[in-house]
């Protein structure tokens, strides 16, 4: 099976869908001729023409607002916000418009729209190229929020997102574009060509939204992770020897609570890890749900390892980022209790 980087897999998903469905259109800043600053749309304009893949003015509210109108018309826009950090001007269009259109019109209008955004840190991007705003989307009724962790899933999830009848926020951990990153920033990068999840099937396939996957079976403890943190969790497990079960959530909303419950009931311990800031982060929701559904199976309190509640710093990035050492300490503490 061909191996691809995650950005190639994402491009492949859009290519497959643009080929299958004339209603799929792709646009955003630098997305057309140049093919996106991360090359996610490279070649699509040449292949499908300027009216289906094009550059936009630098106006995120305009990008998403226009896409809402197009989706209501019957198109399936898959738009790119250059960095998730730039999405705030579009937030009103996402929250008040895209997410509510089906509801407030009683189904007369709908909004089958995908908003792709590179997310997360690890690229020396400072506070404006490193944020993880997923909780700002999971808090909104009417949205679905997806965070893939590898090329194979990224393609299948993006295809499922484009085919979905409702708006989907598709957060792409940018540090994973070229290889699985485990938080050891001082070590050589492993490319996807050397990783089995870099194997991306050709053609059309969908990875259903709302289904998590167990990345590592384990008996001692459950780690809930998504995106880059899946690999940080793996590294922490390897380095501490804790026999943890690692669940890659893949879709944050709708959440696969069944898979989480089954695992925590088995292990009796749960550690939640994410890059985003701690307070009111998605980990808070996960923690509450685990407590509500698995309380009598828990042997220790649910713990979180997250980014600190500061703006994402530039020079102190690796003190901020919840790397394998920090995750590993919490795994051990949880086991010692």
């Amino acid at each position, binding site marked *: 099976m061909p191996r691809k980087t995650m950005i190639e897999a994402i491009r492949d998903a859009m290519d497959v869908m643009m080929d299958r469905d*004339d209603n799929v*259109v792709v646009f955003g800043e630098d997305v057309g001729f140049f093919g996106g600053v991360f090359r996610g749309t490279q070649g699509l304009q040449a292949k499908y023409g300027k*009216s*289906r893949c094009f550059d*936009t*003015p630098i*106006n995120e*509210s*305009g990008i998403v*607002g*226009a*896409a*809402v*109108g*197009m989706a*209501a*018309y*019957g*198109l399936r826009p898959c738009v790119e916000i250059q960095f998730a950090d730039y999405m705030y*001007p579009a937030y*009103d*269009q996402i929250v*008040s*418009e895209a997410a509510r*259109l*089906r*509801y*407030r*019109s*009683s*189904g*007369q*209008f*709908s909004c089958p729209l995908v908003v792709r955004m590179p997310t997360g840190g690890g690229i020396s991007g400072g506070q404006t190229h490193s944020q993880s705003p997923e909780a700002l989307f999971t808090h909104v*009724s*009417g949205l*679905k929020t997806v965070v893939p962790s590898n090329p194979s899933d990224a393609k299948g999830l993006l295809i499922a997102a484009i085919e979905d*009848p*409702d708006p989907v926020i598709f957060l792409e951990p940018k540090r994973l574009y070229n290889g699985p990153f485990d938080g050891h920033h001082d070590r050589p990068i492993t490319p996807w060509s050397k990783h089995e999840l870099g194997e991306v099937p050709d053609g059309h396939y969908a990875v259903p939204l*709302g289904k998590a996957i167990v990345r590592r079976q384990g008996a001692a403890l459950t780690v809930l992770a998504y995106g880059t943190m899946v690999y940080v969790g793996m590294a922490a497990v390897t380095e501490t020897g804790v026999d943890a079960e690692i669940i890659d959530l893949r879709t944050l*909303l*709708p*959440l696969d*609570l069944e898979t989480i419950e089954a695992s925590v009931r088995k292990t009796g311990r749960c550690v939640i890890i994410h890059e985003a800031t701690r307070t009111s982060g998605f980990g808070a929701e996960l923690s509450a749900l685990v407590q509500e559904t698995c309380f009598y199976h828990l042997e220790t309190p649910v713990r979180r390892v997250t980014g600190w509640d500061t703006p994402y710093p530039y020079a102190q990035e690796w003190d901020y980022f919840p790397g394998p050492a920090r995750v590993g300490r919490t795994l051990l503490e949880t086991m010692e209790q």
Partner: protein
Amino acid sequence: MTDYGPLTLHVPEPAVRPGGTPDFSSVGVPRAGSVARPEVNADPESIRDLAYSIIRVLNRDGKAIGPWGGLLSDEELLEGLRHMMILRTFDARMLMAQRQGKTSFYMQHMGEEAVSCAFRKALLPGDMNFPTYRQAGLLIAAGHSLGHMMCQIYSNERDPLKGRQMPVLYSSKEDGFFSLSGNLATQYIQAVGWAMASAIKHDTKIAAAWIGDGATAESDFHAALVFASTYRAPVVLNIVNNQWAISTFQGIARGGSGTFAARGLGFGIPALRVDGNDYLAVHAVAKWAAERARRNLGPTLIEYVTYRVGAHSTSDDPSAYRPKTESDAWPLGDPVIRLKNHLITIGAWSDERHKQAEAEVLDTVITAQKEAESHGTLHSGGKPSVRDMFEDVYAEMPPHLRWQRQQAGV
């Protein structure tokens, strides 16, 4: 030491506040028929003056004058008069219903009836409006059921929107009326996107965006103009300048710009200003702009100069922020009376027939109201189901919402 004195902040004020004598001397009103009518493919650079004048057709004597007149037959004008009369009567009944507690909230159109009623007649089936809350004439002139609108206002068991939206935030896909958000300006850019989609699909449909003078200050107004300009979207960009944004006079949003229409010029978008209380002028300008869109010539910006005679909504009292008699001083008159007088002047109408029509319209509206009220009002009778509260959040209900619906006991 510096040569410069201390800086001061400029905060614009309306000409008059409550207690003062209304003054609209700053609204320059050109003679009817005095503004040229360019070809729809005219170079935008050559018609910049249209953004600073006011296109008018009906003069003080009730005659239709000049190049923007003569587009509508007597029958079409009589139909237009009837639409405006229905809207005015509908408003009066619903305001009363609000005072009777049958709904919590209402927004009337008094003085602005011509804008939405006349504009609608420039559209074709399949075109889509992205309206604000003061364009119910778009529905009425499309022949939409008054009863459906009332059931929405009453949030009763027949409310097409199942009780999810505040009164007057209608939605009708079949009558080209996009679901009203209630947020300001967000839908201006959506109209541009909808129009772009029509162009992408090589269809023939066009979109119409709507915004008030106050909301032009929103960033999404700028987003819409830059996208419309860049992609030459087949969209008509409407600004209804009714002088007041709740209590804020239009000068706060307009700032140092000469007119709201002039905002279009920097984007290379042809921009026209029109007498919003002149049914014939509104229709002619709307038709001109729609024609440009249909011929793939791109967007047009239209500023309707009008006056909000009533309160912003049932939740504010205008006498707290503007002179009570200001509407009497408004120099562009009343749209219903002006069209009525025109029809009488040309021999197509009479005072007697008008009185008779008023009675008929009232009867039509009351009949619809009784039928709507038989299905309930806000606090009595049939209500939308609580179970429906959980539907349509997504196409398919996800597990967490199913669980919450169970918790709610419905």
